C-alpha cells in the first residue's frame, strides 16, 4: 500500500512530475553522454599513441600531421625525402622508427604502406603478413565491413575520398586478416611501401611521382629515453625540410580545445540538474501544502512521522531514480546515433553499453539532488499538528 501511495502521489500532479522528470532526464543524459564520449575518445587516442613518441613528416600543421599519420582522419601534410629521414633515424637516441606512406583509400579505409613492425602487436585472424608487392593485410573492420577474406582482390582509390581516381589495373590481393585490436589498425589496409611507390610511379592520370629520390609520407619514432624528445624535435624543425610533432602534445592540445566545449556543456547539464532538483523541491513542497490534511489524516490512522517522512523522501528519490535510468537510456540512444555517424565518417566505433565509474558518481549526485530536494518538505511532517490541521479544514 505504501508503494502504491508513493506512485499515486507522484502521478497525481502529472505536469509538475513530468517537468521534474524531463529536467532530470536531460541533465543526466547530457552529462552521461559527455562522460562516455570523452572517456572513449581519450582511450582511443591513448591506445593509438602507444609506442609513438614523435612523428616526422612534411612541414605544415603539426596537428594535421598527427591526425593523418596516427589516426588517418586528415590529409597528409606532404611527402618527405627518405634520404633525409635516414640521416635522422640512425640517431642513437632513437630506438625504433616506422616509415609510413599513405594517401590512397579503399572505400574510405586508408591504405597504409609500412613495414612489419607497424603491426607487430596485432595478431592474425587468418592468413599472413605481406611479402610481395600488391599484397595487403586488412584490419578487422575493413574485412568485416567489406565482406573480404584472404584471397580477395581490390583496387585502391587516390586520395582520401571514396569518389577519387581509381588506380585501375593495380589489384591488391588480401593475404591476411588481423584480429580486432581496438586501435586504428582495425580500420586500415596495410601493405608494404614498395606497393605504394609502384602504384604511384605508374600513375595513369599523368600525376607521376617523378622525383629522383624516394619519398615517404611520415615516420613514427620511439625514443630510447625522454632525452630524445628534448633534442631531436628542435633539431629536425630547425635544420631540415621536415617537421617533428609530438603526438602527446598535439593530442593534449586538441583534447584541451575540445575540453572547453565539453566543460561548457557540463556546466549547462549541471544547471539543468539543479533546476531539476528545484523543480522536485517545489513540486513536493506545493503538494505537501495541499496534502497537509492527507498527512494529518494518515497520522490519525496510525502512520508514524518517520513513515510519512519516508514516503515523501521516497517520492523524491523515486523521481530521481526514474530520471537517472531514463537519462542513461537516452544517453545510450544518443551514443548509438553518434556511433553511426562516427563510424560512417571516421570509422570510429563507440562502445555504447559500457557503464562508467563516472556514471556511478552521477547516480550518487542524482540521488543526492533527490534527497536534498525532498528532505525539507519531508521534515515538515515532524512539525505537523494533527489535531489542529484536521480541525481547521
Amino acid at each position: 500500500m505504501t508503494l502504491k501511495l508513493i506512485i499515486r502521489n507522484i502521478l497525481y500532479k502529472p505536469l509538475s512530475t513530468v517537468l521534474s522528470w524531463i529536467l532530470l532526464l536531460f541533465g543526466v543524459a547530457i552529462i552521461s553522454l559527455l562522460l562516455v564520449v570523452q572517456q572513449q575518445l581519450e582511450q582511443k587516442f591513448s591506445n593509438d599513441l602507444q609506442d609513438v613518441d614523435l612523428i616526422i613528416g612534411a612541414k605544415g600543421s603539426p596537428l594535421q600531421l598527427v591526425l593523418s599519420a596516427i589516426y588517418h582522419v586528415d590529409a597528409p601534410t606532404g611527402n618527405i625525402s627518405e634520404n633525409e629521414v635516414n640521416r635522422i633515424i640512425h640517431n642513437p637516441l632513437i630506438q625504433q622508427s616506422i616509415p609510413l606512406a599513405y594517401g590512397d583509400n579503399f572505400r574510405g579505409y586508408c591504405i597504409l604502406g609500412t613495414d612489419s613492425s607497424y603491426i607487430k602487436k596485432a595478431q592474425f585472424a587468418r592468413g599472413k603478413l605481406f611479402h610481395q608487392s600488391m599484397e595487403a593485410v586488412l584490419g578487422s573492420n575493413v574485412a568485416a565491413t567489406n565482406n573480404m577474406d584472404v584471397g580477395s582482390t581490390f583496387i585502391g582509390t587516390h586520395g582520401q575520398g571514396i569518389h577519387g581516381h581509381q588506380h585501375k589495373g593495380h589489384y591488391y590481393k588480401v593475404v591476411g586478416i588481423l584480429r580486432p585490436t581496438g586501435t586504428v589498425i582495425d580500420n586500415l589496409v596495410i601493405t608494404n611501401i614498395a606497393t605504394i611507390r609502384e602504384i604511384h610511379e605508374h600513375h595513369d592520370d599523368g600525376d607521376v611521382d617523378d622525383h629522383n629520390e624516394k619519398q615517404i609520407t611520415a615516420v613514427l619514432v620511439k625514443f630510447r629515453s625522454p632525452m630524445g624528445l628534448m633534442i631531436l624535435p628542435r633539431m629536425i624543425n630547425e635544420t631540415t625540410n621536415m617537421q617533428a610533432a609530438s603526438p602527446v602534445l598535439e593530442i593534449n592540445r586538441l583534447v584541451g580545445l575540445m575540453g572547453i566545449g565539453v566543460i561548457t556543456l557540463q556546466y549547462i547539464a549541471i544547471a539543468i540538474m539543479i533546476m531539476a532538483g528545484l523543480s522536485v523541491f517545489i513540486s513536493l513542497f506545493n503538494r505537501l501544502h495541499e496534502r497537509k490534511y492527507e498527512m494529518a489524516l494518515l497520522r490519525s490512522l496510525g502512520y508514524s512521522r518517520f513513515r510519512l517522512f519516508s514516503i515523501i523522501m521516497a517520492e523524491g528519490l523515486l523521481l530521481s531514480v526514474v530520471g537517472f535510468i531514463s537519462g542513461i537510456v537516452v544517453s545510450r540512444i544518443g551514443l548509438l546515433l553518434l556511433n553511426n555517424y562516427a563510424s560512417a565518417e571516421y570509422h570510429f566505433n563507440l562502445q555504447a553499453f559500457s557503464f562508467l565509474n563516472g556514471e556511478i558518481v552521477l547516480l550518487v549526485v542524482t540521488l543526492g539532488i533527490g534527497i536534498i530536494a525532498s528532505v525539507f518538505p519531508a521534515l515538515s511532517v515532524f512539525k505537523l499538528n494533527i489535531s489542529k490541521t484536521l480541525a481547521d479544514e
Partner: protein
Amino acid sequence: MILAKGITYSYRGRSALHYPDLSCNPGDALLLTGKSGCGKTTLLHILGGLLSDYKGELRIDNVLLNNLTTTQLDTFRGQRVGIVFQRAHFIRSITVKDNILVAAKHNKNLQQLAENLQISHLLNNYPSRLSQGEQQRVAIARALINKPAVLLADEPTSSLDDENAAAVITLLKEQAALYQSALVIVTHDDRLKKEISKSISLL
C-alpha cells in the same frame, strides 16, 4: 472499553478545559454534547490519541495512553482507535477502496464492511466523485476496518438532513455493536439525544 479520569487541557494563553470523567464499554454508545467552543472536538482528539499534552488519565482497552511514546501511540491509534471526522478527509489520489485499506492490517473485513455500509459499488471510485452521504459511509468503513476498541465520531450528522442523520447514527450504532467497539459521539445536534440514551453534557 474507554475510561477517562480528570482530563484537563489548556491551549496556550487560554484557561484550561476541565472535562468530566467518562467511560464507555464495548458495544455501548456515549454522546458528548455541548455548545460550540466548549472543547468537544478537543476532547475527542484527546480520546483518539491525536493530542497528548493533556493532564489526567486515559485508558483504552486497559492500556494507559499517558505512558505511550509518540510512536507507540501512533501504532495504538492505528490498531485500536477509529475516528470519523466532522468533515470526511480522504487521500484524493487513491480510490475509495485504497482509502479504506490505507491503514488496514488486512483486507479480510472489507467485503463485509462494504456490504453493511452499502458502498460495495463505490470501492473503485475516487473520493471526489462521492456524495456527502457516501463520503460519510466510506469514512465509517475506514474507521472500522481494523475492528477498533473505540469508535469516535465528531459531529457526524452536522451537515445531514434528518433522514440521513438518522441513517448515519443507526449505522454507527449497529457497526459499533457488531465490532464490539465503544462508540463515542461528539455533537451539538440535539436530534441525536433521541437515538443515544447515555450522554454527557460539556460546559
